[in-house]
């Protein structure tokens, strides 16, 4: 699965370890990490038994690995790769998770009028080559590939069949798959009795279950390309995802980037990084990409139609646009001095 949410200053000074256990009253905190879906998944969970928490985390990781085997477009034998090979003008039976995630992705496509589009893969691949230094694609190449893109060419037949009304359409779930996997991992933890945990998919999507002992929520710092705002959110049974375009080249022109605008067929040009706070990781993951592509004006309008969502756009020059329909986004080093810049009327 491509690392589709990305970018960041690595401002991390911390202790990093294979696993640790630390006590807090009767709760122990167990932490584990695992490389899956091209990123580092981390789970920190509180429980009375470190062994139980550890086993639960391992089971959650196994669920993510299982989903990666279905949703990866890097693995040639994944269900998605199989679909990409065989669903052109042919209804292919797919596993229920793949059906579900594509179904949800199409909802976001409709909601954003196509800005969020999982059929963008052929264009992404075209521009990936440019990022690798293989030259900029010609206009003719771009036009040819754009003909392969369009979420409306994906047909779902409930409960488990999918077909493409195009001979060259390809799906890439990079903008939603990690979020979906995080939600499923949270379900696994919950089913095993874990109530307070944090699941982190490479920093780009984070889901908070419950809260740490003696705390009201998990404190999550959000991406701030300006290093001046320090936005934070107190998450409890909610998720936050961050999207940002690839940083510009230092020694070349900056045409390339990994997030492609379906309207233009070219890498998105934006000054912002976006964080979307939502109830589920699937939603926050998909929304962060969508909101980055839409920009603040259209993005704010879209959020009005989605309940319990907040979002913040921050530029390198510390320009901030914010919309609060869900959890408050706070600013500054101390939460007491934090301010909220706005709320949907």
């Amino acid at each position: 699965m491509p690392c589709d949410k990305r970018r960041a200053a690595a401002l991390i000074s911390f202790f990093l370890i294979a696993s640790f256990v630390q006590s807090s009253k009767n709760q122990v905190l167990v932490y584990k990490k695992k490389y899956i879906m091209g990123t580092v998944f981390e789970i920190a969970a509180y429980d009375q038994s470190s062994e139980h928490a550890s086993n639960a985390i391992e089971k959650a990781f196994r669920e993510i690995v299982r989903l990666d085997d279905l949703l990866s477009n890097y693995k040639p034998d994944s269900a998605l790769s199989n679909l990409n090979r065989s669903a052109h003008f042919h209804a292919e039976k797919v596993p229920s998770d793949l059906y579900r995630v594509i179904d949800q992705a199409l909802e976001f496509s409709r909601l954003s009028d196509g800005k969020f589009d999982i059929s963008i893969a052929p264009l992404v691949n075209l521009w990936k080559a440019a990022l690798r230094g293989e030259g900029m694609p010609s206009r003719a190449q771009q036009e040819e590939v754009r003909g392969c893109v369009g979420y409306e060419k994906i047909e779902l037949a409930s409960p488990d069949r999918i077909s493409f009304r195009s001979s060259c359409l390809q799906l890439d779930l990079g903008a939603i798959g990690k979020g979906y996997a995080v939600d499923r991992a949270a379900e696994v933890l919950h089913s095993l009795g874990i109530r307070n945990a944090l699941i982190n998919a490479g920093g780009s999507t984070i889901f908070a279950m419950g809260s740490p002992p003696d705390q009201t929520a998990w404190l999550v710092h959000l991406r701030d390309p300006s290093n001046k705002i320090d936005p934070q959110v107190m998450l409890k049974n909610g998720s936050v995802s961050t999207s940002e375009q690839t940083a510009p080249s230092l020694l070349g022109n900056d045409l390339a980037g990994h997030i492609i605008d379906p309207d233009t067929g070219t890498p998105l040009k934006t000054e912002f990084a976006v964080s979307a706070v939502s109830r589920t990781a699937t939603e926050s993951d998909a929304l962060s990409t969508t909101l980055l592509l839409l920009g603040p004006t259209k993005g704010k309008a879209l959020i009005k139609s989605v309940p319990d969502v907040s979002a913040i756009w921050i530029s390198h020059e510390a320009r901030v646009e914010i919309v609060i329909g869900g959890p408050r986004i706070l600013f500054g080093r101390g939460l007491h001095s934090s301010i909220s810049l706005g709320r949907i009327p």
Partner: protein
Amino acid sequence: MSIWNTFLVWVFVLVSTSAWSSVFVYWTGSALPPAKELGLNDLVLSWNDSFSSQVKAARKQGYRVYVEVSLHQAAAAAKTGTSGVEGIVLTVRQSERAELEKSLPKLRSAHPKLRFLVLNPDAKQPQMRGSLVVKRDSVLEVSSPTAQPWIDTNLALVKIEQRSHQGQVPLYTFSWGLSDPRQQQPAATAMDYLLAVAEAGAFHADLILQLDERLQKALSNHDAEAWTLWNQVRSYARFYSDEGGQRLEATANVAVVVDDLDTTDEAMNLMARHNIPFKVLLLADLKSGNLEGFNVVVVFAKPDRGVSERIADLAAHGETVVLVDAHGSYLWQNRDAVRLNEHAVAYAVGNGKVLELSEPVTDPEMFAQDIRRLLGKESVLLSLWNGLTTVAVPYSEHAGTLKVLEFVNYAEEPLRLQVQVKGSFASIRYETPEHECCESLSPVRHNGFTEFVISDLKIAGRVRLESNRAPDSPASRE
């Protein structure tokens, strides 16, 4: 330096490079198992009051003993405390480098029977990091997203050490991170030890491996679990200990030129992380050194007239030279400049070009990607797919064709790795510490490159490449 001293240095080099990598054990506990049991013969002890008795005991157990001292203690230690000692390990901080240059020849000359090893104590614990932050009040925070897994690797440090101490195999050590700062307990797992040994071995560096106290105790107490762990460490150390008669050099087609050998340089770290094979040079090397085989030269120093003439010459012969934050008037600037972006311009010089970046590297990750792009598709020696947690180092015989690729997977979990290497190779043999020589991998050759798949890279793996003398294999696409 006298002829005798030069001779001694080279004898030392030849002796010290008889293995690809050596692991020295740093032991602080009391009950030391015999060397035969531990399977490693080089032991490092601190210089303290009970040092002499410790040396005696360790020698009885079959060890070659080294004493670790600071640069300031070196002369005294060499004079008074070296009975039965094989050599002296000099812990040298970045700030002591200049002093070392003066002291080391004197020490070697005064004590010709002792080996003097320069130790870089500032290496990192090799690991794949996450982004969770542990705060003292037990609240977990999360910082911003990362583009790809963050890997702490010592490859750049090794390359800098190779230039710093040319007469010695790079030697480094690191302290284990702590699982919980309040408990003050190291978090090293079996996998962590294996990764540490694999990393040093793959980089052809020597490592002083610090054993945490619990492991030392457990080994002393014949704890079965501890010995299972240790036997794995032994097999990893053995995997890198025998060069099999092959004298290999790290291959590089990028030169990184600096005026200060700073092991914390992030741009070099990220280049290592992106599997860009580079060699570190000092500015003076650029004037006189042989720069054949480099496709890109990155200069992090302000060139004087002589160096700028060499740069112009290199560019004229087809190389790409990148000058970073080196404002000045240079020969090539009388040509037309092509502005690449706000901070970068390019000058076409002969068959090559000079790129000037007008500011320091603000984004080392992007800079490394830029250097990879500048190499161009044809000059990239090595590419990995599904290898975001893997660092690979190519080796060749006397700067000739590639012979060996060493792989380290910092995720510590099996990975299916797709590799593309420059050159046409008929035979690809794969070996690991767990399954020594050799599994044959199927090469697919096309357009001067060879591709193959390693189906199961856990932590360490080595690929041996044989050149294409036979007719193309059926799989060939050439």
